[in-house]
């Protein structure tokens, strides 16, 4: 099979699989374009992608977790901790590379804690991550006693502001992580095992899948993705905020579920999640551009989520 054929077939498959949700995205874009001609510009498209980056990357991690039938409510707090770890590293005079490594390690560690508590102590992940959400949020505030911490490292802030080959670095990072997660999920034994375990944990166990280890690794992935989100956020803001990422977990879950990930586990893709995140991003951006007042934005956003999920559920049912 040639490359073009593959990619054409892939596109067709995406359209088939994501008919409902893809349609919602296109309708949204169409509406906004009609109402504000500036919406459909390359510059604005870059805007949307950059704004959606933090949620999209966190949502990639969330997709893994939901795929297993679990949930991770602590990612908003992990986003904040990651920024703060970076800021503190610089405050202690470290360079970019060690700060980056420590930040990612912090994310991995927080994910590891979630994973071990869930997989080894058999506590429900919902309650584990509600608890760690509070714990991590408390921890992030200790170094500065709640105040934001400025980040002066130029490499770090360049991530959020500079471009590479004409494309903002943030967008590159989103694309790379998208491909990474999509390939890991769709093309490797690891991803296959995640689907199988999410679909039927008992059967996976009997088939020799190391279910506990898998679960822990996936919480670590979620933690690392959230940490990367935190890096992007702090680099865009030039500072680590102790209230960064509050309630982002809900946006990340919404993105994943809009994209067809089933909260019951076993079903979901990164493509869907990306589309879901874009819907949320386009909606926020478009309504800002139209100067929709804040409270009406809340209402419209809720309605759009309902309609999109409903279209998707309907499309899936019709296919069966």
């Amino acid at each position, binding site marked *: 099979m040639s490359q073009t054929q593959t990619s054409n077939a892939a596109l067709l498959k995406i359209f088939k699989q994501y008919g409902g949700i893809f349609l919602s995205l296109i309708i949204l874009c169409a509406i906004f374009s009609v109402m504000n001609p500036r919406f459909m510009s390359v510059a604005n498209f870059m805007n949307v992608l950059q704004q959606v980056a933090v949620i999209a990357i966190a949502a990639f991690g969330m997709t893994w977790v939901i795929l297993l039938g679990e949930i991770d409510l602590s990612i908003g707090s992990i986003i904040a901790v990651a920024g703060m770890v970076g800021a503190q590293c610089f405050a202690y005079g470290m360079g970019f590379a060690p700060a980056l490594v420590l930040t990612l390690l912090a994310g991995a560690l927080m994910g590891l804690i979630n994973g071990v508590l869930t997989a080894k102590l058999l506590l429900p992940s919902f309650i584990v991550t509600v608890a760690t959400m509070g714990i991590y949020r408390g921890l992030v505030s200790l170094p500065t006693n709640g105040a934001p911490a400025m980040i002066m490292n130029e490499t770090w802030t360049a991530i959020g502001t500079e471009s590479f080959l004409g494309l903002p670095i943030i967008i590159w990072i989103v694309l790379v992580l998208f491909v990474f997660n999509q390939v890991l999920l769709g*093309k*490797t*034994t*690891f991803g*296959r*095992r995640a*689907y*199988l375990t999410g*679909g*039927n944990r*008992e*059967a*996976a*166990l*009997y*088939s*020799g*899948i*190391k279910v506990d280890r898998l679960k822990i690794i996936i919480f670590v992935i979620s933690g690392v993705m959230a940490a990367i989100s935190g890096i992007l956020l702090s680099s865009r803001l030039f500072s680590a905020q102790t209230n960064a990422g509050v309630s982002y977990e809900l946006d990340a879950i919404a993105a994943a579920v809009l994209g067809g990930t089933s909260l019951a586990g*076993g*079903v979901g893709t990164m493509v869907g999640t990306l589309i879901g995140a874009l819907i949320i991003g386009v909606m926020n951006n478009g309504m800002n551009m139209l100067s929709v007042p804040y409270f009406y934005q809340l209402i419209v956003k809720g309605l759009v989520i309902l309609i999109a999920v409903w279209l998707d559920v309907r499309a899936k049912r019709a296919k*069966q």
Partner: protein
Amino acid sequence: MNAPTADTILKINNISKTFGPVAALKSMQLDVRRGRVHTLLGENGAGKSTLMKILAGVYQPSSGDITLDGQPYHPTDPQQAAALGLTIVFQELSLCNNMTVAENILATREPATAGFINDRKLARDAARIVAELGLPIAVDEKVGNLSIAQRQLVEIAKGLSIDAKVVILDEPTSSLSDSEAEILFQIIERLKARGAAVIYISHRMEEIMRLSDDITVIRDGEYITTRQRETVTIEELIALMVGRRMEEIYPPREEAAPELSVPPVLAVESLTREGEFDNVSFAVRPGEILGFFGLIGSGRSEIMNALFGMKRAGGTVRLNGAVIDLDSPVRAIENGLGFVTENRKEEGLVLSQSVETNISMVALKHFANKLGFLRRRSERDSAVAQVSRLSIKTGSLDTPAGALSGGNQQKIVLAKWLLMKPKVLILDEPTRGVDVGAKFEIYKIIRQLAADGTAILLISSELPEVLGMSDRVAVMHEGKLSGIATDGDLTPEKIMAFATGMTS
């Protein structure tokens, strides 16, 4: 078809039912008479349960009409069906595991005044129902703590607690052993004597011949014929059902069983787990089929779970003479053990995933390069090979496993274990709920595996199956191995004696 007689209580005319593109029933007809047992016979997926669910008000027919006692009968839910005098014991267990036996038996019919439940009366009523049926279950136990067989009895009690004119039993014996089944048969006799009509579904030919008065054969959702029991033989029925003749039910062994002097591949010594099984020792040789028989609750599944590393147990396990520590399924699989579990839906299959994905599940490593990237081509080739080898009937390899009929699902579970080429294959009730045709194919595969040198542990609650397939039969009684029957001892009488603890 016979003209309706005065005895006719339930009459089904031209019933069709479609699920999207699937036509599960095509102009089905049936004429059920008072005081008689009417058996429905058909392959897996023939549409038996669908018809029963229509009768119970779970599904609405796409077309056709039904009369009960001469009146038009179109129930919209099972409660209404019960009110009109029809009750059903469902094939798929429809119990709530978190609740007690009593609460399940009387679910939605709790004794209550003004909506307030009288819990003590509930327990009393349930205990009375269970006692009247003669079932050995405690009504205050949580259903989740019962074995599958016990749950099946609860299901029966739930269905039969309604005083009905028509009683439907959809594969009630699929996980019962003979002694529990016997209780059920007596209940059926009493129902008949009372004048109720019983619609019975089973894949066990012996019990069908014993119980039935009328037998209707259906194939691919279509009515084939109705016969009276006295006028047919098992062979004829099977031919009607599968559309071809079958020479025998159990394929004969083509090569001789291995000598007892051959060193065993798996030797189990004094395997013990508190409260479940005690001091169990046995050995199995390459190419040997070692049957395991016992009444329900005798602990066979528990032993196999321990062997497979799902539960810890004391004792020694030797593989080819070397002691191994089986502490997890991962380790068991690495050591060449395969385990077709008792409950395919819960422990065997990922129903939402495709046939292909399920087949490659255990041997997944072999379909990936060192980096863990899947080689989809070789995965697909293997799946194609398995599907044709086991003649699995599926729309495509991408069909979700949950969409297949029971027998075909069972074959997928077999296929996934065959792909890892086990040295020892444990089969726990491998033909539960499987139709005769598919059973025969599964037996052929077992024979083939044995011929290729695989050691097989075959657990079954069907005595004919154990006798028909095994070289030797280990018999369990209340957690202890009461004996291993060989050659001359391989008779129903001898084995039942072991199983009920009459010997030793």
